[in-house]
């Protein structure tokens, strides 16, 4: 709660900059239009015009907020025009991908730390995998997964047997989750490798005097020492997972979710829709990162790490 005032201060400063930016960036268009219409604009006219354009270069905050309000609160959340609906589509892919990605990342990290062969052979390829532009292989991946029929989570028939009708978010979930996982496993690998190697020589020696098994050393020493690194990685990983899910939405079929909204917003020139989706995605990211932060604080406190 102590942080409310600082946050508000920063947000207020940001808003001021944003408004100034909106006026500055949109004024060119307003002046352009006026010139073609052959009229002179007064300063106040410029300001009112720039803050209410239908296709602004930079929409004013209140325009975005209005759009957000209209597409969240004022729409039924099952409606395709509701940002909540699209947010949920994206979130489900993000979370599933994050779980896959984190799992894979931790497993690889453990392998790398425990097996020299894996360290030498996997790490360079894990790095290389991340330099492959995801937007380039996402469509290929979707095509391939489509071909082998692995697109829906649970599969249409299973889902229908379980829930009556197939929940909308499950349709085409898997390729998106895979791409989200692809982006999120890497920060987890890098951070966890470092974290699992963080115990100092004496701490490791202690385990050796107990002739502790690899498993015991892992659970009782390496894993606890890696926690600060682990949570930092998770924060980056979940943000990456969200980016992955949104990127994947451009190649997935049907196009929807926050990424789909950004794309169609851009395609149809609906700047406000882009910004609303953008802010929506950022809110989602912030909430997810915040959640992990809370988890981190709780865990580290239980581990007596910080007064």
């Amino acid at each position, binding site marked *: 709660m102590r942080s409310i005032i600082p946050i508000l201060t920063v947000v207020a400063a940001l808003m001021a900059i944003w408004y100034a930016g909106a006026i500055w960036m949109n004024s060119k268009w307003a002046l352009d239009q006026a010139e073609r219409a052959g009229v002179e604009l007064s300063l106040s006219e410029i300001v009112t015009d720039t803050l209410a354009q239908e296709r602004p270069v930079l929409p004013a905050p209140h325009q975005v907020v209005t759009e957000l309000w209209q597409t969240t609160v004022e729409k039924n959340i099952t409606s395709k025009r509701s940002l909540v609906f699209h947010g949920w589509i994206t979130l489900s892919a993000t979370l599933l991908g994050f779980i896959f990605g984190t799992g894979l990342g931790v497993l690889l990290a453990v392998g790398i730390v425990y097996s020299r062969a894996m360290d030498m052979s996997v790490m360079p390829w894990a790095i290389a995998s991340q330099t492959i532009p995801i937007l380039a292989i996402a469509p290929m991946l979707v095509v391939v997964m489509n071909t082998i029929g692995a697109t829906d989570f649970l599969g249409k028939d299973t889902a229908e047997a379980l829930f009556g009708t197939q929940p909308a978010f499950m349709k085409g979930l898997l390729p998106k989750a895979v791409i989200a996982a692809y982006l999120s496993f890497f920060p987890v690998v890098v951070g966890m490798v470092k974290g699992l190697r963080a115990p100092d020589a004496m701490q490791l020696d202690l385990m050796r005097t107990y002739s502790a098994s690899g498993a015991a050393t892992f659970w009782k020493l390496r894993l606890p020492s890696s926690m600060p690194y682990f949570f930092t990685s998770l924060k980056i990983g979940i943000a990456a997972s969200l980016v992955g899910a949104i990127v994947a939405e451009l190649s997935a079929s049907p196009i929807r979710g926050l990424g789909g909204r950004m794309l169609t917003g851009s395609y149809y*020139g609906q700047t406000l829709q882009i910004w609303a989706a953008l802010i929506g995605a950022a809110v989602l990211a912030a909430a997810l990162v915040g959640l992990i932060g809370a988890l981190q604080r709780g865990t580290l406190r239980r581990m007596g790490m910080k007064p």
Partner: protein
Amino acid sequence: ADDLTLQLKWVTQAQFAGYYVALENGFYEEEDLNLTILPGGPDVAPAQVIAGGGADVVIDWMPSALAAREQGLPLVNIAQPFASSGMMLTCRKDSGVETPADFAGRTLGVWFYGNEYPFLSWMGTLGLSTDGGDGVTVLKQGFNVDPILQGQADCVSTMTYNEYWQIIDAGLGADDLVTFKYEDQGVATLEDGLYVLEDRLTDEAFQDQLVRFVRASMRGWKWAEENPDAAADIVLENDETGAQTEKHQRRMMGEIAKLTAGSDGALDIAAYDRTVATLLAGGSDPVISAAPEGAWTHAITDAALK
């Protein structure tokens, strides 16, 4: 019912109204078809989808379909609901461009991703190089018309049914703009056609499905042309992003109807030859190197339109 999957070239919009209409009105069902429509997007290459077995029929533009054929993917045109091209280059009048002769030294926005072929052919016939210098400077234009609004390009690519209206909506009047329709410049190439893989055409059962599919689709298009507003509404209902507006889709339907007008679905051989000629004429760097063989068939439309 037979399952059939159709991959669109782009997102759900009135450009594909005929298929959605046929689906909603049960035309496919009446033909004993269970059709799935897969919307496309900027990152979906229909040819790739069909090569991977993700769809049975795809909608593509002929230049890119023929290019794919040269790449070793044997696409065959089985029907051509779009008779004419909707592609244009739209310039701001205040940039000083009045005729194609003024292009030299200008910055032009172009779509790539297989949509650049008509443009490249045109520039080829105009004798303008596309890599700067004394020719034109080409920008890879994104999804939208921002470059012309922001003044980053003198001209951008537009479709009669979509981007052009976005420029208008953004506040530029029709008389602030100069447009060059590819049709008028004699470099028009065939757009949205239906393509399948050549080897599957030998399968009689599949042929039969295609016949029924084309028949129902053309029924859909006829209906859409006659009921443009209702067709636009059907499209809106099928839009999963919830981003479409009624105003825009109805207007788009109106423009689309102009392009489908005059086609009964059968490929017009003259238009095909003109397309091939245009693509072959692309100066030093033609899009295709030789006139393709067997790139189309009338077998399906002949049977469907009986």
